[in-house]
């Protein structure tokens, strides 16, 4: 008996001490296991949502697929972990997932004290409000005394508190853990207002019983730059995430699409040559093969293609490019050059 206890205790101690070496080179771990474990939402149409065959699609999903295309030359080598807003950072910190691409706002606390790194911004969002048309509310400033449904563990919860406090308005917050429960509670009339990032409002409006009876108010009360997140302290993996996203944006800027990428590979434009691996050794610099960006564009598409396919004006979400247009076309999307 004592022997068993002793060996168990010893085993636990050793396991506990060894655990410290588990982190570090994510890229090697990913290559060894053969897929990227990607943390996504529990279903946010257009961003990360499983279709009727169980395939995940969305702009957040495309970031993970782009990383898989860069690492393996195969965008399908991704496994998905649906996470609630509350679970997401712990899942990343503990190494359960390799990258978190789950409409997550880049804030200073998260970037520093939480031990995480944001690899860029794949959607510039802002928090908004949705109400029933029947309330006759035209502006968020008329919401004093309203009850507001939202998610726990989000920046949304903090922004709404700031906004109502700054405008000296009363409110009642009703915070649920899962966004489906928030939507259900709002739909049933428990709350007057549903607040989250505006993209999320448009996406979740589709889940309501009568989407046409609800209106998104014009005010945007916060900056919500959403982007993929990795663990701090692994620069190689951080670089890979960062440049996979940048490659998609640069591809759009250079006019390289999934359709014309093979012709473009023969282009004389040195910028396109560098992007598609015909010049320079940029793949080696991030630890993958030199045609990494070619594979991303070929299999996932450039940023604009991903946007239009998942959330653009021809999808049920009908979101305009707005801020998410390229800098050269009036938006603020701007990726550093590949050189």
């Amino acid at each position, binding site marked *: 008996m004592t022997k068993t206890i002793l060996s168990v205790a010893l085993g636990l*101690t050793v396991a506990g001490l060894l655990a*410290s070496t588990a982190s570090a080179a994510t890229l090697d771990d990913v290559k060894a296991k053969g897929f990227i474990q990607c943390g996504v939402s529990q279903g946010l149409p257009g961003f990360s949502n499983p279709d009727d065959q169980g395939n995940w699609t969305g702009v957040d999903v495309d970031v993970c697929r782009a990383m898989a295309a860069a690492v393996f030359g195969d965008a399908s080598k991704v496994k998905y972990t649906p996470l609630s807003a509350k679970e997401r*950072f712990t899942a990343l910190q503990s190494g359960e997932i390799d990258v978190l691409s789950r409409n997550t706002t880049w804030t200073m*606390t998260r970037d520093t*004290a939480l*031990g995480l790194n944001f690899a860029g911004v794949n959607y510039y969002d802002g928090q908004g409000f949705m109400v029933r048309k029947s309330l006759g509310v035209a502006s968020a400033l008329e919401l004093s005394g309203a009850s507001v449904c939202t998610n726990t*563990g989000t920046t949304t919860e903090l922004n709404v508190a700031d906004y109502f406090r700054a405008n000296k308005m009363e409110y009642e917050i009703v915070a649920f853990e899962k966004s489906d429960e928030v939507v259900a509670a709002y739909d049933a*009339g428990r709350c*007057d207002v549903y607040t989250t990032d505006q993209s999320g409002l448009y996406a979740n409006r589709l889940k309501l019983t009568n989407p046409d009876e609800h209106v998104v108010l014009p005010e945007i009360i916060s900056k919500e730059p959403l982007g993929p997140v990795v*663990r701090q302290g692994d620069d190689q993996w951080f670089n890979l995430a960062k440049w996979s996203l940048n490659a998609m944006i640069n591809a759009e800027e250079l006019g390289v699409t999934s359709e014309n990428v093979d012709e473009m590979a023969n282009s004389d434009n040195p910028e396109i040559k560098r992007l598609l691996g015909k010049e320079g050794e940029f793949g080696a610099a991030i630890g993958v093969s030199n045609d990494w960006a070619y594979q991303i564009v070929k299999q996932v598409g450039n940023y604009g293609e991903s946007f239009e396919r998942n959330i653009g004006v021809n999808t049920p979400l009908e979101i305009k490019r707005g801020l998410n247009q390229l800098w050269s076309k009036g938006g603020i999307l701007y990726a550093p050059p590949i050189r």
Partner: protein
Amino acid sequence: MTVADTPVGTGAPKVAIFNDPKVRGAAIQIVLIALIAFLIYGMVSNAATNLAKAGIASGFGFLNVTAGFGINISPFVEYSETSTYGRVFLVGLQNTLVISIAGIFFATIIGFIVGVARLSSNWVIAKLAYAYVEIMRNIPLLLWIFIWYFSVLRLLPSKSDPINLGPFGLLNIAGYYAPKAVFAGGAGWIGIALIVAIVASFVLSFWAKRRQLATGEQFPVFWTSVAMIVGLPLIAYFLTGMPVSFELPTASRFGPKGGARIYPEFLGLLLALSLYTANYIGEIVRAGIMAISHGQTEAAHALGIRSGPTLRLVVIPQAMRVIIPPLTNQYLNLTKNSSLAVAIAYPDLVSVFAGTTLNQTGQAVEVLLMTMLTYLAISLLTSLLMNWFNAKMALVER
């Protein structure tokens, strides 16, 4: 109690020190304790190193940082968005205690009724109680919470169109808005009258017991006490010129305003917790009563005691000795189960502290440690109280 032998100088057979069972036993225990201590040290220092290496903040400094998010339900602790995370902890603790105490209160009452009803000689009542127990305990608690909150309470009308209960306030999907008592000057006398009535009831029951022992005459203690507890404050109320008024909730654009509000999240959780735990308590009560030999009832009847007093004075006091220990377990279960509140937006300790606070600060180790210790403390305190109660009710052996 045996006195430890003292081998030195008593002429006991000499044993090599490593063959002495006592020395061996002690040595093994010391080694085990040292190993456990090392294990704990290893885990703590490993966690600290890893947190530092991963760049994750640690320490308890976050308790003094402004939380910045709102909490809708906080009946006693004052809270606003400018309060600290330490205050969030208190609010969560308060809400956990409130739901636990309320849940235990209702679960006990319903449980006793169900337990006695199951033993009823009335076929319909017994079968109804039986059906209740079977339905309740065979469906998971989380599902009950969802059923009450997302299905039953959702049948209430919308905020703009509440059910008007007249002088009893309003009821809609956002909760029950009871009239709120507003106290004016002189209202203190009503409170004093109430206290006097309660004290007088105790004195009365003491006196009645003495008198019954001496003369055998009974006194209607219960009804006299009720009359005093209700009557005295009422007399005080009228004598002081009716200083209590009731503020009724009024309609506004976003539903009723004012009044004392009971939130649907609280109501849903309370219904689910108390009805669910009540069926287990009912079974415990039934087992306790059945553990008392039927001879006790027959003997009481033979003495001419009627059925009601037999149950109240003979059976239940004896059954309590069987009931209390498992009852303690149910109370602990209910308290721990209240953490399922997170599913329906009731801001209990797990929801606002182990949930939102953890997420905003990222300090999982500290937050979870505090939460675990808090639940441990609540449970130990409950056990302590129930053990004291058990000792008081136990058979006194002379």
